[in-house]
Every structure is written in C-alpha cells, then in structure tokens.
C-alpha cells in the first residue's frame, strides 16, 4: 500500500516536476557552495573553480595546527609584515587585493581576531587584526569570555532583561568550558556546506510539504474517497499506509538530497577540517561542536523539521480536504517567523527561536544565544528544538490517523 501511495505522488506530472525541481535546487546549492570559494591571485584578481580551491587549500593547510599563543603570535607578526608593505598601504584597491591574497592562508584566524579584540561583544571591525601586537596573543581566548560577560551583565543594555541569572551562568559556563586552543586548518568544505544548508533544507521542506499535501487531500480531489473508505482497510491499514508514505517520502528524499549536497560539496571542496571547532567558523557560538558534528546536527535537525512540516501539512490537508490550503502551511511556518523577527523585539525573537523554522536553519540558530530556563534547569534552543519537535511529530501521527479515518463522505 505504501508503494502505491508513493506511486500516486510520483506518477503525476506535478510530482515529477517537484522532484526535478528538488534535484535542481540541490545542484544549485552545491554550485553556490563551490563557487563561493575564491582565491585571490598574485595580481589581486579573484579566481574560482577547482584550481582556486586547490590553491586555497594548500595555503591554509600550511597554517594547520592548534591556535596556541605561539601560533597566534606568528600570524600577528606575519600579518603586521604584510600590513607594512606598499601594497597593503596603497590607496589602490587592486594593490590592497594583492596584499589580501598574501593573507589567505590564515584569513579565517584574522576574522576570529577581529571578534576577539573588538571593542564590544557585538562589534566588528574589519581592520582590528592590523592593530594587534604579538604580545596580545595571550588575550585571544580570555577576550572571548570577557567580552561575552560584559555583554551579558551590562545592566543598561536591552539584552540584560532577556536572560535570567541562571541563563547567564549557563552561557558563561559554556564559554569557560570551551576546549582551547582551537585547531585550525583548511575547512572551507564544511564551512560552505553549513553556510548554504538553510537554503537546501528550506527548499526541501517546501517541496516535501507540497508533495505530502496531496497524500490525503487528493483522495477527495480525485473523488476516489468513496471507493477508498468503503474498502476493507480504508479506515485503518490504508490510512496508516498514507502516513507511512509521508514518512518514507520525507525520509528518502530528504536524506538523498542532503547526501548528494554533502558529497558534491565536500567532494569538490574537500573533507578536511571537519574536526575543527565550530567557533573557527562561528566565533561567538556557545555550542561545543566540531564542524562535522555541527553538520550532523544541521542534517538531523533539518530532517526532524521537514518531517514535522510534512506531518502538519498532511494533517491540515486531511482536515480541510484541500491540498491547496495545506500547501501554504510550510510557507507560513517558514516565512511568518521571519516576518515577525523583523519587528526587532528581543523577547519576541527569543520566542521565535523555538519555532519549527529554526530546525531548517540550524546553522543560523547556532549563532544565537537562545537559552531557556525551566525551573532550575537551563536548556539551549537546540536541545529544546530537537526534543520538542521530535515529540510533536510522533504525537501528530496518531492524530492524523484519527482525523482521516473518521471522515464521512456525504
């Protein structure tokens, strides 16, 4: 029965188009990830493509290793040396680009320095790294904690009331227990993979939601409901098969798309750097994750999110008997929180941090400081999102079953 339910979806022209669109979007995302990697050549001109990737990889591998005080001093000195060159000091942008090219091997470290030595936790100055002296290298990690504490405990700031004392303590503890020194190497593959993941996963959620919307509603649309419900299993096993088809539709297509996206991106950009901490990419993140773990979290969270979206869509389609209305559900679930987020309310944003669209953009959510206190326990948004939406998806399935099997065909 599940096989036939899936066949109903994919034998239609719209099903085939949706599948082709998904394949195109995955290829587009992989292309965006790969083409987003640039190498600035000796003339200061940007290059992309396999040769550029190879040069960047070689340059950054040359600086591989733990970012301890000695290595940071070495980078600061090298950076100072380049900053003193005529090319770096020139008013000609092209000359500046040539100087930029010399720094590509450790450019991500300079970005980390721009955050670590900023005047405030939420400040960023592109040129901060040029003002650092080697003797400041020892402050690299302590500064991360210091700036965050200042931000959390600044009583006059709008952020202060956003956290309870326990939540503040939780965040501080996360920073304090972060393993240092960070390991640095070429990790562009994982970074790009993560960076473009919200696009891939949101597209998947929309397309899978579209495909799932018809599983129940099309019985009514095609007027096949009377034969369906009058059949022996029309009010039990056949309904379960529809839910099963929804589950397998999401599971198979989601993981196939994610796997293709991952293999294409990492296959071209390289698998190296997976064991670097997430902070190499997202300096402020309080989550203790390696890059590969962050990707796993993104992929699993996205899967739970897509499954939840599809089940909600199926529930709405079963309830309203309309796939047209149901198909708008994923759009609303994705775009409504984004719209509300523009209202610039920190408290609202903290609430929005728990909505299911966050599961589709975990890479973005890993930047945020959304933590929630329940009694004496403090939970990160990630933990809550994974637990709550796994539970809700599981709970939704029997409701969906009950909703559809009790339909009357008048």
């Amino acid at each position: 029965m599940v096989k036939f339910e899936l066949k109903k979806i994919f034998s239609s022209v719209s099903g085939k188009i949706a599948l082709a669109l998904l394949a195109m979007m995955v290829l587009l995302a992989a292309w965006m990830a790969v083409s987003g990697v640039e190498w600035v050549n000796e003339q200061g001109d940007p290059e992309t493509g396999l040769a550029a990737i190879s040069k960047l990889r070689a340059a950054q591998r040359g600086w591989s290793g733990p970012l301890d005080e000695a290595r940071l001093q070495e980078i600061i000195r090298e950076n100072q040396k380049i900053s003193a060159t005529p090319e770096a000091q020139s008013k000609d942008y092209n000359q500046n680009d040539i100087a930029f090219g010399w720094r590509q091997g450790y450019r991500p470290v300079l970005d980390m320095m721009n955050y670590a030595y900023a005047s405030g936790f939420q400040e960023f100055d592109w040129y901060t790294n040029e003002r650092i002296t080697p003797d400041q290298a020892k402050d690299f990690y302590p500064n991360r904690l210091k700036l965050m504490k200042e931000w959390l405990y600044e009583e006059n700031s709008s952020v202060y009331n956003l956290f309870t004392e326990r939540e503040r303590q939780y965040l501080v503890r996360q920073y304090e227990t972060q393993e240092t020194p960070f390991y640095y190497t070429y990790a562009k593959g994982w970074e790009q993979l993560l960076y473009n993941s919200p696009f891939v996963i949101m597209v998947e959620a929309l397309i899978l939601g579209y495909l799932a919307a018809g599983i129940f509603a099309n019985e009514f649309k095609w007027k096949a409901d009377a034969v369906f419900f009058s059949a022996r299993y029309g009010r039990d096993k056949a309904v379960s098969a529809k839910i099963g088809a929804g589950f397998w539709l999401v599971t198979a297509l989601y993981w196939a798309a994610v796997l293709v996206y991952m293999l294409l991106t990492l296959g071209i950009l390289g698998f190296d750097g997976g064991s670097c901490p997430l902070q190499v990419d997202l300096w402020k993140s309080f989550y203790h994750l390696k890059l590969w773990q962050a990707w796993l979290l993104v992929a699993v969270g996205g899967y739970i999110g897509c499954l939840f979206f599809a089940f909600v869509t199926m529930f709405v389609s079963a309830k309203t008997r309309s796939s047209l209305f149901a198909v708008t559900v994923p759009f609303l679930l994705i775009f409504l929180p984004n719209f509300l987020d523009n209202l610039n309310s920190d408290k609202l944003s903290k609430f929005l941090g728990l909505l299911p669209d966050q599961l589709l953009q975990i890479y973005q959510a890993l930047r945020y400081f959304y933590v929630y206190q329940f009694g004496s326990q403090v939970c990160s948004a990630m933990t809550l999102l994974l637990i709550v939406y796994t539970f809700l998806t599981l709970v939704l399935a029997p409701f969906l079953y009950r909703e559809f099997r009790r339909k009357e065909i008048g």
Partner: protein
Amino acid sequence: MELTITNLTKEFGDFRAVDNISCTLHNGVYGLLGVNGAGKTTLMRMLTTLITPTAGSITWDGQDIFKMGGQYRRLLGYLPQEFGFYPDFSVEDYLMYIASIKGLRPAVAKQRASLLLKQVGLYKARNKKMKTLSGGMKRRAGIAQAMLNDPKILILDEPTAGLDPSERIRFRNLISELSEERIVLLSTHIVSDIEYIAGEIFLMKSGEFLLSGTAPEIIATMPQRVWSAVVPKAKIETYLGAFQVSNIKTVPGGAELRILSVNPPSGNAIEQSATLEDVFLYYFGEKGDGSDGEI
C-alpha cells in the same frame, strides 16, 4: 446472508435525506429507482459505511455494520455515482492498489485483476492511464474494482450514468452476469436499467420507499390505465394539460401520445400494457426516460 435496514434515517441539518426506511435484502438484484435527490445516494453511502445514520440501523446477519467495520467492508463492492480514480495510474495499477486496500494478497489480486479486466473488456487497455480512458471504459474499470474482492454485497450507484445506449446495454448485461450469489443493489433514475435486471424494485421519493415489489407488482399498483391515441398537432397542448403523457411520437397528420388515464382520453384511443416507465411518470409526475439526462 441478510442485509437488514431498520427505520433508517439520515438528516443533514434540517434536511431529511433518508426518512425512516426499512427493508431486508437477500441474494438477488434490487433496483432503487427515484428522481435525483430522492435519497438513493445517501442510502447507499450509509450501506457502504461512508456516512453514519442519524437514526435506525443496518445489520448484516444480525450484526451492526458500523461495529463490524473492516469485517463488513470486506464483503462490500461499491461503484459510486461519481467514480473517482487516480488519473496517472494505469488500469492495472489502479486495480492492484484497490485490491491492496481491499486486503487481497498480491498473487490473488493479480489473478482477480486479470480475470476481471478480461470480463469487462479492458484487458488490452490495462496499461493505459486511467485518465485516458473513455467514459464507458472508466465505468467498466469501476465495476472491475468493485468486483475485485468477489463481494457478497455489490452496490452500484447510477452505474450507467453518462454511457451511450450501446455501452448501457453492455453494462446491464455485465451486471446480470455478476449478480449470482450476491446481493446487488442498483440505483438509477433510468427506468429501463432496472426493468431488465432487477428482481425487486424500490421506488424512492423524498427519502422514503414509496413502493416496493417486482416490476409487475409495482405496475399493478397504478390505478391509471395506459392509452395510445393519435391526435392532431393543434391539440397536443390540450392533451398535455389534461393528462399525464409518457411519450409523444410524431406521425403523419399529428402525433401519437401515450396517455395515463382511467378512462379512454379519446374515441380512437387504444389501451396499452403499462410499463415501469408509465409507473415512474405516474408516481413522480416526471418522465423516467431511457436517456440519462436530468428528469
């Protein structure tokens, strides 16, 4: 094997679609005759468990069919009036899917589907997509799906609607062939469909059974006699106003009318044998013609 309907009522808000009807069905073909809106489809939808009654009961061998659930539905074959299907499925896939939700094992399903496809004359078209079939072919696929589980109760709601005359005759013959050893309940507003194949007929009007019995029994209940009279063209309107006329046939010099009347409507009127169609006209005040148009 006995399907018993007792004081069955179905209301939709203030509207009573089926009004306190009772009957018992055994093996054989039963015809449910009535104009559109008489409550035939609502009754059939209750018999197929698609809707629940407001009052009354339906039992199969003494057991409530709604409590039996799947055990009752496994005995059921149903061709709805608006026969929907999966447009991109081939005929064979469609039957295999319906067989699966009817609980047939794949090997049995394949055999049954193949047999029925041959029986309904669709074997050569088995790989065609359902959406490409003609109206008659779709109906035949519909009857094939209804027969997949060799049902003990076969319910056919307006099975010949939309078919051309030759398709309709083929279809009637097919239903006759399939009617052995089961209860077949056939609803229609086309009198001739029922006249030929139904053993017992229920005349349904405004949600109630107006009459039931065999065709001769029902015909015998009509107090009117049937007359054939040739009248000049100019007088046709007068006759139509004064009598119930079940047929008008143009003849040289005027028209031959089929008139329901206790007494001869004119001096040259010749008495005819009454048919079910005349009864239909008498009770429903409308003509139950051989076409499938709205009455």
